[in-house]
């Protein structure tokens, strides 16, 4: 009887929703000790385009959300362990490991939060992947990792995990500004035969269902993301590629100047959210 009244009258539902059924904002705390900011005041980079910025975590089901609350439940952490082993593995002609110079991954805490960032020496915006490849090729005299290879994406998961809880804070002014502008242009360009821009889905329609998908703001603070759908760790540029492909467009390549610029721009839209990777998504 009660149930019938509730479901048949939206009015009553709405009234109750305000009081008895008021939903607590879900709060993400990892391992009971790392609080994650999943909603933040809109940063300057979004210039009134969004009222607030929201992590993709908020748009997932309670079951998927809970997988991220405990590292033992988070399948992405398996790849973090792989990268920890890699971090101590000697590579190249001089038998150097990452740990030869950086001691522990924790020494690199904070890096994830500020990349992509301008690199003075190379005179370009560098992603964290490019920085790692710089260490591999210029400091260890060995081969670069493929941009979205397992080695690279696992290392991204490790570097994200040691920065979890820190606010994303990429710089968009100074020498990085023109790259940021380029990324912004890409974000608002309607690609492909479906003529859809990132903004059409992630700015104009976040919170809405697109067929079976609950659209988020398309933030990257949670990357790399372990996706239940393909049961693997997914890099930022692979996600960009998938989203552009879904507009029936010719995509850009991971590691391309276009995706580097887009990454800087999208990262800046999440300034203020916590680094959350490796996240769990569907």
């Amino acid at each position: 009887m009660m149930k019938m009244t509730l479901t048949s009258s939206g009015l009553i539902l709405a009234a109750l929703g305000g009081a008895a059924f008021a939903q607590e904002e879900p709060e993400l705390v990892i391992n009971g000790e790392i609080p994650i900011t999943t909603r933040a005041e809109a940063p300057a980079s979004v210039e009134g385009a969004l009222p607030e910025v929201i992590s993709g975590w908020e748009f997932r089901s309670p079951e998927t959300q809970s997988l991220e609350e405990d590292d033992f439940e988070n399948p992405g952490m398996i790849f973090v362990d792989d990268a920890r082993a890699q971090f101590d593995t000697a590579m190249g002609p001089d038998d150097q490991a990452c740990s030869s110079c950086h001691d522990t991954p924790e020494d690199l805490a904070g890096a994830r939060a500020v990349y992509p960032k301008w690199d003075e020496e190379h005179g370009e915006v560098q992603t964290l992947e490019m920085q790692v490849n710089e260490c591999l090729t210029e400091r260890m005299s060995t081969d670069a990792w493929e941009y979205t290879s397992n080695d690279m994406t696992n290392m991204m998961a490790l570097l994200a995990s040691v920065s979890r809880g820190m606010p994303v804070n990429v710089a968009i002014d100074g020498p990085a500004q023109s790259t940021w502008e380029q990324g912004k242009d890409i974000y608002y360009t309607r690609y492909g035969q479906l003529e859809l821009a990132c903004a059409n889905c992630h700015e104009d329609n976040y919170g809405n269902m697109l067929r079976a998908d609950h659209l988020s703001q398309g933030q990257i603070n949670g990357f790399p993301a372990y996706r239940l759908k393909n049961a693997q760790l997914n890099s930022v540029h692979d996600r960009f590629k998938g989203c552009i492909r879904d507009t029936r467009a010719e995509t850009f390549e991971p590691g391309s100047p276009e995706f580097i610029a887009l990454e800087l721009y999208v990262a800046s839209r999440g300034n203020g959210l916590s680094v959350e990777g490796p996240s769990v998504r569907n």
Partner: protein
Amino acid sequence: MTHLTRLLAGVALSLSTTAHAADAPAPSDVTYDEYGAVDASLTGEPGDPAEGAKILADRSLGNCVTCHQVSDLADVPFQGEVGPALDGVADRWTEADLRGIVANAKQTFPGTIMPAFYKSDGYIRPGDAFTGAAAEGPLDPLLSAQQIEDVVAYLMTLKES
């Protein structure tokens, strides 16, 4: 033998599609009025509402339910909410309006997120369907002229009053 029959059926099919295509205006030749409506049928033949319903639901065709809810298609799971529900759409729009909206909604709603289904050029980085690779040569519109008419015929059945 079976092979040959199939082959022949295939030929017959493609011949008849070509015949239709020849009659239908090219996407760039369709005339929209100032409100975005298209008066004349694209094929001169009536659309088939049953086919139209399939096109709305099918991921590889119109996939309209990605964005729109349609109560009449209640058995199709996961209907989206990016666009308005299409219930009663024939009460709100004329057949010519609906033809224009389905063929190129941007003529009716400037800047809309809704893709143009009868358009074949003017894209930025057009792809080869959902492969992510560049399109090879000219693209077909997302729906054929007859499919547009089928969709319009179906939408005309969505009346509430």
